[in-house]
């Protein structure tokens, strides 16, 4: 299985990667992209099984990425990993087709709970 992490922060991409390993997803292929534009190109070429994306990013943000994917007919499971989890944003995410939203800071247990319905450890 292939998981794509999208975040403009290198530190956060490392932390998400580390947390995925701690949550039992270390055997999967984990790819990274630094913003929505880079992610869109990657997804078109590599067809990941799950996308974990930050919301606020330069170039193309997370919600723009999700909308672009759904517009292209790409139905890959998509979850946000973000410091923003207001009710408005949750509603916007679900409306755009997001499967879940993980709030920063997070734990391996929270990752397991959110990812389990989509990717087996």
């Amino acid at each position, binding site marked *: 299985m292939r998981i794509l992490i999208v975040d403009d*922060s290198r530190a956060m991409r490392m932390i998400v990667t*580390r947390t995925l390993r701690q949550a039992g997803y270390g055997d999967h292929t984990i790819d990274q992209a630094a913003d929505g534009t880079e992610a869109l190109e990657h997804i078109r070429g590599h067809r990941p099984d799950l996308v974990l994306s930050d919301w*606020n990013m330069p170039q193309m943000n997370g919600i723009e990425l999700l909308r672009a994917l759904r517009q292209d007919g790409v139905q890959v499971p998509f979850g946000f990993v973000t410091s923003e989890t207001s009710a408005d944003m949750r509603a916007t995410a679900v409306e755009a087709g997001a499967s879940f939203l993980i709030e920063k800071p997070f734990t391996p247990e929270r990752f397991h709970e959110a990812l389990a319905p989509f990717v087996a450890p």
Partner: protein
Amino acid sequence: MTLNANMLCEITEGVWGSVLGLEARCGGRGGESWGGAGEDEVATCVEITGAWEGSVTLCCPTGLAARVASIMFGLGDIEADDPDLVNDALCELANMIGGNLKGLLPGPSILSVPKVLGVGAGAARESLQVQLFQSFECHGERFCVAVAKAESPGGTA
């Protein structure tokens, strides 16, 4: 809702503990004026625009900032001295603190991408006035979080 020092303490201590595994103890100065980032400090901030207008700034001494970056990048005991790594790590922490504070504020509003502030700056824009300032102790060093606010939504203070 009006932000207060207790909210700032709870969120910052939580982020510090969860992300870094470090204890940050809220204490010392609070509520007084703050002159912005010093020469030996790294300051990063996120701006909030919308129903609530302002910014949240994290300011760390360079030694603590390097230690924080080292932990976030998994470098073990090697201190991160690359400014790009340090800035990236501090930006992400400001983003988390700001994002969590934003959740307590009136909405809708938008959180900016975090950025590094220059020496002497205390907020995302000069027109914002620091209204809440709290210092923390971590491993013998002090860092601070400051909240600056415009006088009215969409206003320029």
